[in-house]
């Protein structure tokens, strides 16, 4: 009996399976994954190998007793096919799931807002990268801790979480909270909660979104500050306007009044000249008018006019202060005070006073304007010295909360408590008849310091002396 022609195909089958097996063996050495798939593919190929071997033997008429074996092996084939497909499918499904989970987790982790999840005890079970970054902690440091440990309003937060978890209050509305960062700073946030349920409807936890509202809070705060500054500036402006308009009125009243007096005197002169009788009485009237009344009236008029002039120029100086450019630099206060004392040398000598300047720390400011500040204060100190004792003026400084406070202390006449606020008012003078000046010195000082983000404060006891505290930003 010679072999059936189909044997050729069986031999091809056999060889192909052998090759496949070789390939699989080669791959299985290197491959770390796909173990299951390789296994089932190998089993399939091996089964087909054995089957084809049996077929060769059968159809080449070598033997015909392999029926049972053939049948058994043959049935295995579709089974291995199924397993191969199944193994691949399982891996693919798992891979897809992993990818989808990873994508979802990335969304969660890198979201622009913070997310965290709490369990039924309020402990943190999940927390995303954004929130960790917000607070500056590591994942391990926050996992498992109760969430209220990171909130400044600890008690309120704890109570709220417990209430929500027990179903007592519904979550939902956005709450403003302050969180504690790792470095101790606070972070204002907006917090929204949602409850998590299991399939039976029981509450299993809370998921919260955390939004960083520090910028918004800062903007709100800045706006409030701005409104306050605006309100106070408005008040200041109004008071300047009020004071100035009143102070300008006074010389105007004189000008009007004495102009009228002038016209009356002219009437006197006219009537005296018209009077032909030329008596001693007429003469006297003429004399009084020309030598006393008219010059007096003119004197008042010109004085009042120049007073108005000086008031207006004082106002102009003050307004120019607001618009002059500030050249902020580090100032060596020792050289600055030396300049000031040198330029006021004459007044110091005249007043017979001694000025002592102790070592001063540097500050930040515009040199010519700060020079003006100290010149004005020094001039005031010299102006209001006490006659009964030699004048002693001392300048010293101390540091306070990131600023330098310079003090100009004198032993002059002092300032009564009700005048302490008024001295900074525009055109206010303590002793107008005794001392010269326009009452602008301290107003100018206050304006300059406000532009430098500094301020001035005065402590004084009448009869003892005064202390002016000038606060400026330190270097």
């Amino acid at each position, binding site marked *: 009996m010679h072999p059936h022609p189909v044997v050729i195909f*069986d031999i091809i089958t056999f060889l192909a399976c052998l090759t496949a097996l070789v390939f699989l063996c080669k791959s*299985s050495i290197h491959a770390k994954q796909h173990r299951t798939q390789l296994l089932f593919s190998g089993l399939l190929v091996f089964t087909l190998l054995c089957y084809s071997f049996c077929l060769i033997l059968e159809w080449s008429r070598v033997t015909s007793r392999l029926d049972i074996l053939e049948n058994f092996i043959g049935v295995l084939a579709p089974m291995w096919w199924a397993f191969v497909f199944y193994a691949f499918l399982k891996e693919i*499904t798992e891979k897809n799931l992993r990818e989808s989970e990873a994508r979802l987790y990335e969304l969660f982790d890198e979201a622009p807002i913070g997310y965290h999840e709490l369990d039924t005890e309020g402990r943190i079970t999940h927390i995303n990268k954004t929130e960790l970054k917000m607070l500056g902690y590591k994942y391990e440091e926050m996992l498992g801790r109760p969430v209220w440990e990171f909130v400044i309003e600890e008690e309120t937060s704890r109570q709220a979480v417990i209430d929500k978890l027990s179903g007592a209050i519904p979550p939902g509305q956005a709450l403003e909270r302050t969180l504690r960062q790792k470095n101790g700073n606070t972070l204002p946030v907006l917090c929204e909660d949602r409850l998590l349920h299991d399939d039976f409807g029981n509450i299993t936890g809370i998921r919260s979104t955390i939004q960083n509202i520090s910028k918004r809070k800062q903007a709100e705060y800045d706006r409030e500050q701005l409104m306050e500054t605006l309100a106070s500036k408005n008040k200041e402006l109004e008071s300047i306007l009020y004071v100035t308009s009143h102070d300008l009125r006074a010389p105007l009243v004189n000008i009007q009044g004495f102009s009228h007096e002038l016209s009356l005197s002219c009437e006197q002169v006219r009537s005296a000249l018209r009077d032909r009788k030329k008596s001693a009485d007429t003469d006297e009237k003429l004399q009084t008018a020309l030598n006393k009344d008219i010059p007096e009236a003119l004197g008042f008029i010109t004085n009042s006019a120049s007073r108005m002039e000086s008031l207006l120029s004082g106002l102009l100086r003050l307004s120019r202060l607001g618009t002059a450019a500030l050249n902020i630099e580090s100032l060596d206060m020792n050289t600055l005070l030396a300049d000031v004392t040198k330029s006021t040398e004459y007044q110091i000598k005249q007043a017979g006073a001694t000025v002592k300047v102790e070592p001063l720390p540097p500050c930040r400011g515009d040199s010519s304007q700060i020079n003006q500040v100290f010149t004005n204060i020094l001039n005031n100190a010299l102006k209001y010295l006490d006659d009964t004792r030699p004048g002693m003026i001392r300048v010293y400084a101390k540091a306070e909360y990131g600023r330098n406070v310079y003090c100009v202390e004198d032993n002059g006449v002092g300032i009564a408590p009700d005048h302490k606020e008024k001295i900074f008012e525009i055109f206010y003078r303590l002793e107008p008849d005794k001392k010269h000046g326009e009452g602008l010195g301290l107003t100018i000082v206050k304006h300059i310091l406000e532009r430098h983000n500094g301020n001035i404060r005065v402590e004084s006891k009448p009869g003892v002396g005064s202390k002016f505290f000038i606060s400026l930003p330190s270097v």
Partner: protein
Amino acid sequence: MIHENEVIMLLLGVGVLIFILTSRLRLKQIPASNILTAAFYIAFASWVSTVLEGLFLEGLFNYVEHICYAVGSILLAVWCRKAFATKKETA
């Protein structure tokens, strides 16, 4: 003559065929999936021919059966090479 085992093989094959047809989209993600599925379809064809061989045209279907075995194995071999190749081997 129909043998029971051939029918069983065919039935099992039908089951696998249904499984493949319903998961076609996901199976596309298998490397070189067309070759593998082609190999299976040919294997299925051989099982069909084995059964039909017992009914009519015995000689023809016998040849078809054995040809299918051969072609299917060749495809399987090709697929094994392609599917499990490491990154270094694939171009």
